[in-house]
């Protein structure tokens, strides 16, 4: 296997990582926001459900969460699409979403608690319902205050996509393993190449968040 083939392998690996990351990111932001909303909601049952979910999933290693998605869901006849690679992709993104959403929710909740009490009081005073208070007054501000910690959660998500390699997903780590299997003599360069690819992706993300921080963050 020559250099070009290895490079091609790596690029398809990077593409796989980006796909996993992007879909899971959207899912985690949506589910995380919903969970955060549930945790501060007026309905006790929603609060309990959200905090139980967060406590259990957050304390389970991602490998196990992914295992239950990949091997538990088929037993429940929950399958997606005809091809197993697409199926595995969905299982992995479900696991990443379910796991990362907990951290998004926790981060958002700490953001919510930094919003001055007067804001919510004012919102209620002008007659906004809970949903309106949350979605129009509290959350937009909370999101802005938590951009830096949210950035670390999201960069952690990028790195966590590596776990999907053990569950029939084509991404950087699986590309590296495949390459090592055929080119055992290149172990160290292959390891460094993979590390470099992750660093570049993380660096780009870091830049995006620096930009968002400068543009949006409200200092308190």
């Amino acid at each position, binding site marked *: 296997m020559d250099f070009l083939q290895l490079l091609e392998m790596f690029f398809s690996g990077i593409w796989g990582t980006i796909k996993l990351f992007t879909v899971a990111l959207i899912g985690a932001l949506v589910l995380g926001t919903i969970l955060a909303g549930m*945790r*501060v*909601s*007026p*309905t*006790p*049952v*929603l609060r309990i*459900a959200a905090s139980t979910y967060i*406590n*259990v999933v957050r*304390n*389970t*290693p*991602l*490998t*196990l969460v992914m*295992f*239950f998605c990949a*091997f*538990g869901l088929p*037993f*429940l*006849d929950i399958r997606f699409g005809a091809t197993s690679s697409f199926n595995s992709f969905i299982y992995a993104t479900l696991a990443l979403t379910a796991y990362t959403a907990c951290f998004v929710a926790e981060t958002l909740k700490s953001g*919510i*608690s930094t*919003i001055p*009490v007067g804001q*919510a*009081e004012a919102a*209620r005073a002008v007659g906004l319902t*809970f949903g309106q*208070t*949350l979605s129009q007054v*509290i959350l937009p501000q909370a999101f802005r205050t938590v951009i830096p910690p949210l950035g670390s959660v999201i*960069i952690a998500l990028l*790195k*966590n996509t*590596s*776990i999907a*390699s*053990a569950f029939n997903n084509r991404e950087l*780590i699986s590309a*590296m393993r495949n390459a*090592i299997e055929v080119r055992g003599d290149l*172990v*160290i360069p292959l*390891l460094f190449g*993979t*590390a470099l690819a*992750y*660093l570049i992706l*993380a*660096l780009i993300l870091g830049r995006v968040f620096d930009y968002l921080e400068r543009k949006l963050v409200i200092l308190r």
Partner: protein
Amino acid sequence: MSAPTQVLFDEPGPKARRNNIILSIVSAVVLAGLIAFVIWKFADAGQLDSAKWYPFSFSQIQLVLLKGMGATLKVAVVASVLALVVGVVFALLRLSSKKVISVPGTIVLEFFRGVPVLLLIFAMFLIFGNTIGAFWSVVIGLTLYNGMVLAEIIRAGILAVPKGQREAAMAIGLRPGQVMSLVLMPQALRAMMPTIIAQIVVLLKDSALGFIVTYQDLLYQVNLIGREYNNLLPTFLVGAVLFIIINMIVAGIARWLEKRLQRKSTAPVGAEGLSAQTAA
């Protein structure tokens, strides 16, 4: 819960309370239905057969699981202690006023912080694994990654200490090393304790990756039992429960420590802050 969550909505009136009760009952029914569905499906697939579960009633299998749990905890404890040391060292390197020290420190930190811990463990194992063994491959991999994350946390903590503190310490004639070790570092560690412990919980969870490099931890044994008795799913369930228990204990300790530290936050900090560090 804290005040802001309560001001988000009005005190529930009689109608809202009734709705809450109805909603609770409905959710309970839905949840029960969901659990019943899962159990029915698993039973249908033969995953709940006694043959799949009876190995767990044998003391040898339980012992294997306990041994795996012990191995996981051992990795987590050693790596936590080392990661804290590395964290303090790299926080100091980055804060150094000399560029020759701070720039390389930053580069190394960003490198190890930017790659997946799985890759680090794997790299340690493939490059040095033969000499240092699986245990140290996992420990060093976890230490490098989490140490760098902790360094950033500690650095943020040190920067957050009011400037007057450093100036006052200098004014009474402390040397820079003393200013750091007696004044700034204890306060930084104390202020950042909840975040530090949260990171240690992350480390603990990541220690589950040891099985990939043949370290005989909880998941390794779970894989082994699952392979031998053809009960991968039940064994993983047992493993997950054990993991959740360990992590909840650590999270409980974290909450307790946080409360304790909050209560004492006005008291003078000295060696005590450091003892809290080793306790973590």
